[in-house]
């Protein structure tokens, strides 16, 4: 979806931005090619390869059988042999059938070769729920991927970042897991977060992997999140402003490497920390963020840090249960209120 604002700035959805970055790199570099289920003529179930098949043809834009172990393993082999594959795992939830190729090969071959074997590949995968697809099609699993060493992990919240991170991921000589949240893709059928569709330059550019962004400045509390969670934080920050509080919002953008400096600087300024994560509560991103701040300087906090994360349950189908369990702006505002009371 492309829209032009009155100022003439072109806005893109994340899906379009990913496809544009990929196309530009494919024009520049014959080593770049794409593989995955339904990424050819269909343009990807989530639209992020739209137009590529028409421009580059079936040799470089390859629909695969439903054989994730084989084609993700094949990407590892091709990447090690001088190509720069981009592969798609349609839903991150399907990692179960192919995780060995991802974390024992893609993520370890460089290390086990003493740095001699490069694995320059991008694994794109969709995350997130909120539309009643239940627990085999709605997870985020950010923490699962970020936990395993040897692969970079990015998760953009808007199209500008998505294009820059996608280009950077394709340029990177290391494997990069590019996690895109379904509700941000600009696919009408998944409901669309308007804030994710933003002006995007036509020319190619990169965004450094491993750099967070302060997307809203404030001094009373730091709200930290990634992908869809950033938009919940921005809404919460707006609501808090109406109450007379000023919230700073940090968009992590990358989980690996994690920009701990930006995080610590923000909390040092505000003295309060709320982490918002659509991934499971325990053993994940939210715990890591809090630890990263506290182990560095426990005295910077004026209140115990809080997290608004997904409870430790499989994601239910019924919309009543799912919506109740998901993070949202109200829960963030509540967490802030409780923090101020205690």
């Amino acid at each position, binding site marked *: 979806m492309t829209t032009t604002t009155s100022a003439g700035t072109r806005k893109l959805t994340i899906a379009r931005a990913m496809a544009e970055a990929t196309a530009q790199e494919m024009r520049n570099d014959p080593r770049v090619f794409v593989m995955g289920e339904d990424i050819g*003529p269909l343009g990807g179930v989530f639209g992020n390869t739209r137009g590529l098949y028409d421009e580059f043809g079936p040799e470089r834009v390859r629909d695969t*059988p439903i054989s994730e172990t084989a084609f993700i393993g094949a990407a590892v082999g091709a990447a090690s042999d001088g190509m720069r594959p981009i592969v798609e795992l349609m839903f991150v939830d399907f990692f179960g059938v192919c995780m060995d190729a991802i974390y024992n090969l893609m993520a370890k071959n460089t290390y086990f070769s003493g740095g001699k074997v490069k694995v320059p590949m991008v694994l794109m995968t969709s995350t997130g729920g909120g539309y009643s697809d239940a627990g085999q099609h709605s997870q985020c699993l950010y923490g699962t991927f970020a936990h395993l060493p040897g692969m970079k992990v990015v998760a953009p919240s808007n199209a500008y970042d998505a294009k820059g991170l996608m280009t950077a991921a394709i340029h990177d000589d290391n494997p990069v897991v590019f996690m895109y949240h379904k509700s941000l893709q600009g696919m009408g059928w*998944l409901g669309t977060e308007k804030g994710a569709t933003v002006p995007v330059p036509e020319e190619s550019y990169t965004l450094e992997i491993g750099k967070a962004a302060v997307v809203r400045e404030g001094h009373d509390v730091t709200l930290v999140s990634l992908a869809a969670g950033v938009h919940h934080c921005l809404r919460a920050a707006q609501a808090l402003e109406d109450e007379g509080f000023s919230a700073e919002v940090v968009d992590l953008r990358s989980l690996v490497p994690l920009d701990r400096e930006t995080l610590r600087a923000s909390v040092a300024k505000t003295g309060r920390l709320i982490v918002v994560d659509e991934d499971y509560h325990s053993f994940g991103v939210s715990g890591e963020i809090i630890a990263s701040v506290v182990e560095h300087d426990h005295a910077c906090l004026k209140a115990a840090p809080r997290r608004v994360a997904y409870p430790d349950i499989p994601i239910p189908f019924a919309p009543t249960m799912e919506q109740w*369990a998901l993070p949202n702006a109200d829960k963030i505002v509540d967490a802030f209120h409780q923090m101020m009371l205690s």
Partner: protein
Amino acid sequence: MQPTTEQRLWMYRHMVLSRYLEERIESLYMEGKTPVFNMAKGPIPGEMHLSNGQEPCAVGVCAHLDPEDIVTATHRPHHIAVAKGVDLDAMVAEIFGKATGLAGGRGGHMHLFDAKVNFSCSGIIGEGLGPAVGAALSRKLQGKPGVAVAFMGEGAANQGAFHEALNLAAVWQLPVVFVIEDNAWGISVAKQASTAVPRNDRRAAAYDMPGVHVADNDVEAIFSAAGEAIARVREGQGPTLIEIETARLAGHFMGDGEDYRPKGEKEGLKQRDPIPRYRKQLLDAGLLDDASDDTLVEGAHARVEAAIRFAQDSEFLPPEAALEAVFV
């Protein structure tokens, strides 16, 4: 193997019932999703994979199964659930996400579990095969009667799990039958573009088990092939792989534009709709007349309507119930 009159009418009735269920789900699913199609909206949110056209596979196989036999199904499970005798009220309530549903609404349409008739399904392609093999092993170890059938789409035959499960079942000679519903498409990818063999039943040779092919979505040919395979496993003679040529008359899921289909394909498939075809077969054989057909169809429709009313009249669980049932 020929079906009895009773079996013929049972198969026809369950096809009619399954189709009507899908038609009703289709229209209820669209409530709240027009003019803007947003999957999260309406009384049935989320993905919806209809089974229209694939009913012969379900009834032709399940006609040979008892409640104690095990079935694992896929993301497209309704026709199989209906034929396996899953509690229809609780199934439809689950599809609506209600408290009275099979899982109180936690699972939804892709995750239907009815332990009373040993039915389950999963949204992950190829992942029903291992559990079917294991259930067959369990029956063998416990000396209990019952066999297992794993249903899958033709796309699943390219998953590692398919090959591993067939080998395991064959090497241990377990009472399990693998049934591929070949509807020629895995979402937008045609079978011939993804599969190295034109017919997956040939892959049975790799595991030294019988491979059977059934053409043309033919109810009685499916009945016959499945009957022989299931009789063999009941006698302890080891697994069989069956591939059935069937037809997906709907999109991959609701909301699918289906632009990938060649022009005219869908119309052609609809002309070969297995339900009117079987109806005619039964009429020609004198097993059905217009009056008895009307009664059968009305009865099936009434059953579906009752299940839908049951679901609609049921409440949702309180949202906090999301926290329950993670462990027993």
